[in-house]
């Protein structure tokens, strides 16, 4: 099979990015230049998600956070419109 080339870190990063964009209005960055400030935004947005679910607000995609992101759920965002 075409083995997915993405490393586990890459996969987890995609899970986090996808989840935060969908449910926590993480802006979609497209340009390289924007990426610097993006890291801070991701950390703050990730902390908001961890706060909502009562997880430790590490700002890092630890196992308990990734496990929460993998759970089947409603498609309506957890904050915002």
């Amino acid at each position, binding site marked *: 099979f075409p083995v997915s080339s993405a490393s586990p870190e890459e996969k987890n990063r995609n899970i986090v990015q996808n989840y935060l964009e969908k*449910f926590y209005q993480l802006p979609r960055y497209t340009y390289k230049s924007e990426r610097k400030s993006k890291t801070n935004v991701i950390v703050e947005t990730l902390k908001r998600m961890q706060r909502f*679910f*009562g997880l430790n607000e590490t700002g890092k995609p630890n196992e308990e956070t990734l496990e929460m992101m993998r*759970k*089947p*759920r*409603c*498609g*309506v965002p*957890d904050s915002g419109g």
Partner: protein
Amino acid sequence: FMRTPGNPKWEKTQLTYRIVNYTPNLTRTDIEALIEEAFKVWSDVSPLTFNRTLDKEADIQISFARKDHGDNSPFDGPDGILAHAFQPGPGIGGDVHFDAEETWTKTPENYNLFPVAAHEFGHSLGLAHSSDPGALMYPNYAFSDPSTYTLHQDDINGIQAIYGPSSNPVQPTGPTTPTACDPRLTFDAITTLRGETLFFKDKYVWRKHPRLRMIEFNLISLYWPSLPNGIQAAYEDFDRDLIFVFKGTQYWALSGYDTQQGYPKHISNYGFPSSVQAIDAAVSYRGKTYFFVNYQFWRYDDQSQSMEPGYPQSIEEFFPGINSRVDAVFQENSFFLFFSGPRYHAFDFHARRITRVGKSNRWLNC
């Protein structure tokens, strides 16, 4: 609870809904019944009424769709996102879309249509997500049996904040979610499981891992959808790598996340007389299983699979100092940890005495 930003609401309380299409997983009759049950969750606690209509202009249009279905919120195939809904308003407002690529059921198997529909209707009425893990408006899926489901107090508060109280002379109330560090916290049952410890309370379970500081708090139905709420006793059979959970005269055998076939069974299988209608607590240690019922206990021999003669005996005589009814008990390093109300007693099984007393929720890192 949270209201949808902008506090949208319907300016009328008599709403109509239309089921636009169906999933092949269930019969039309089943779908219509589950949808009706899901609306009833909200009409029971508010002035809202919901009537099904076949005409095009229903307030709440319900449909099954896959991937990109023209509302700028594409579905993602099996699992992941199960459904979404739109806040009150004209046109697409209030509408509910289910992901047609999910397997929709009316059983504990994933995914039961009832809890998802009831949740989405909350959005159709103006509620956003709740961070209370026991609330219906919590974002993550959890099985709920429509025949026993009672709306959580958080959800009742939310819908009544928008539409006011129900016309019911007796205002309905709902269950609330236990908090780990409530000093009055008591447990229904406790058992070890493959090195972890599970603390059962109402429809919830705290899962404590020996090395991690983290304690997971979830609905029991997340792990074992077919188990009832309100487990009363539980113990681990180490040799068979099973845990047994008890409620009333029934018991279930669980292997990890799997519920064993052929359960529930009747506790008379253990040799209890018909006078025993429920077990308070249970623990297994060195081939013997101890069952605590009121102020007495029974001992069952795991080898011969029979209740030992000469029982029941007085708890206090065999476990000096344990003189209250036992809510829950588990065993750790030859200590029996007895939980009665908000306190626990550590009983050294070999020294035959209590060595420590403390608050029950100390075990939840409080």
